[in-house]
């Protein structure tokens, strides 16, 4: 069985005037269906580039990215839009809910673009919001909620389309530690329910909540393995500053 996400010598090179930045330097990795992986690294390590490529928001300069066996580099704009819609569920650090829409409408957006009939998607959005514990607030607007609640809405929005990969970019970055833990446990529940979750973070204490850690430094993979070994935390000279458990 082929991997759900597969990087084959993926590089991303930015040329800024004279200097050349290798944001990703020949990264190869595989993520299987049902895994909970944390991609961890300091600022500038290339984790955001990785996340953009995995999320099909960006394309590699060199190398191949296969998502569910398909070469993303060969797809046109409309096919990419469909991949965003059907294969990927994004959870952002800043929640990125649409402020004018109600929670229910926010969760409906991906299904609207997928062409799900109105009544059907309303029903599914309700179920998703109930699942994250916000069933009583479906007609509120995002601004009426706390940060943790907004992040739960964005999780509901990410999972409602039943995507192949849930991609969480620093999901706890804007939250206090208590609500951050809640959000993490929600991600763990999703994983337990069989979803593939990819978590991008700079924080070791967050990363170790995952099943597997891929640690990046200067655009390269320096560790790829079980999250519960000591190596996962100390393999980088700077990693210790993030604090283990």
């Amino acid at each position: 069985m082929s991997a759900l996400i597969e990087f084959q010598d993926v590089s991303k090179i930015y040329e800024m005037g004279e200097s050349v930045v290798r944001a990703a330097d020949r990264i190869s990795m595989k993520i299987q269906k049902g895994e909970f992986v944390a991609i961890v690294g300091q600022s500038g390590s290339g984790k955001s580039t990785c996340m953009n490529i995995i999320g099909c928001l960006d394309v590699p300069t060199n190398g191949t990215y296969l998502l569910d066996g398909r070469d993303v580099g060969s797809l046109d704009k409309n096919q990419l839009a469909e991949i965003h819609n059907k294969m990927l569920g994004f959870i952002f650090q800043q929640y990125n809910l649409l402020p004018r829409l109600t929670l229910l409408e926010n969760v409906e957006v991906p299904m609207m673009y997928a062409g799900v009939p109105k009544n059907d998607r309303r029903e599914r959005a309700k179920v998703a919001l109930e699942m994250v514990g916000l069933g009583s607030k479906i007609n509120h607007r995002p601004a009426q909620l706390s940060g943790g609640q907004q992040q739960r809405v964005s999780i509901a929005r990410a999972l409602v389309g039943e995507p192949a990969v849930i991609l969480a970019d620093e999901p706890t970055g804007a939250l206090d530690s208590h609500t951050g833990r809640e959000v993490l446990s929600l991600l763990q529940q999703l994983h337990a329910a069989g979803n593939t979750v990819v978590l991008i973070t700079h924080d070791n204490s967050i990363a170790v909540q995952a099943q597997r850690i891929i640690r990046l430094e200067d655009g390269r993979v320096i560790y790829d393995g079980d999250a519960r070994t000591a190596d996962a935390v100390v393999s980088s000279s700077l990693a210790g500053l993030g604090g283990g458990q």
Partner: protein
Amino acid sequence: MKLTEAFQLAVKNIKGNRMRTFLTMLGIIIGIAAVIVIVGLGNGMEKYMRDQFADMGTNTVAVNIMGRGSSRSVSETQMYALVAENSEYFDQISPTVSFSGTVKIATESPSSTAVTGVSEAYFDMKGYTVSSGRGLQYVDMEKRRTVCVVGSYLNSTYYGGNAVGQTIRLNGKSFLIVGVMAQETDGEMEEGGTDDCVFLPYSTAARMSYTGKINSYTLTVVDETQAAACVSIVEDYLYDIFSDDDAYRVISMAQMLDAMNAMINVMIGILAGIAAISLVVGGIGIMNIMLVSVTERTREIGIRKALGAKERYIMQQFVMEAATTSALGGVLGITVGYGLSSVATIIVTALMQENLTVSPSIGAVLGAFGISTCIGIVFGYLPAKKAARLNPIDALHYD
């Protein structure tokens, strides 16, 4: 995503920015209202002209003979013969001799009464009727009788409604009033109006005039659409006599009405064109605000793209928003235009003392709505394109 959903989304965004949307639409509102009022004014003027000409009879051809020295002239017999020969074109003829001189009724001298010498056929040609007494007769012409028919205004103002049998003095000569014309104007009669008139036999009028000649004729045509052909028949005939086309003038009322209407239409077209410039300005206003809106909503666009919106949907959303804004502006403009039309009708009627109704046509209203919607689509396209092309990574990190 369906169009109705894009429309609902547009309405939602418009509602969220009421003041801004209203200011954006203002250009369109003013432009559409101006076009509606101007077109309405044009329609009113055209109708007014048509009514005026209808009074004069659009089936008439007026012939004026200035002559060429004293050597050549055309007699009434020749003119009557011309009409008789071309009976497939012409119906009737009457000489019209305008009389300039004093009018005296007892001790009073009305100054604006129109006195005209005409034939016995004239009333029939003009559609006038006699309300009491009799009309002019052939024998009055033949004998050059000093009889006349007076208009309803004179009858009621000077004779207390009993003019028949009384006299009127024209240039010192006493005329017996044999008939009173039925009232022609709707509503109140005025001094100098159609009903302030005296008709006497043309032969009598010609004799009383300085030259003693008959210089104008009124002809009625069988078919108004043949007016141009009728005019050239008379012109050709007169040219054969005078060999000089400055010696006479032949005017068909139908042609004149057409010419006047064409003039009004050109004028209205130019005015509407100027008003339409404000529509273009309004469109640019919409484009400007949509560009601002795209910038403001860069993040929203990024989110939507990350959630799977195709470029086409993003475009659709912004074009729909621009079109909805300008169509709404169009509807408001039409409403304002109708309101202003009523006001303009009151003002014009008061100023000109004439019945002129400013009435926008349904065509103009539909056209205005269509144009305003198209403006939204055209001027919304560029900002929408810009929105659709945004790179989702940049858009997501935009603050």
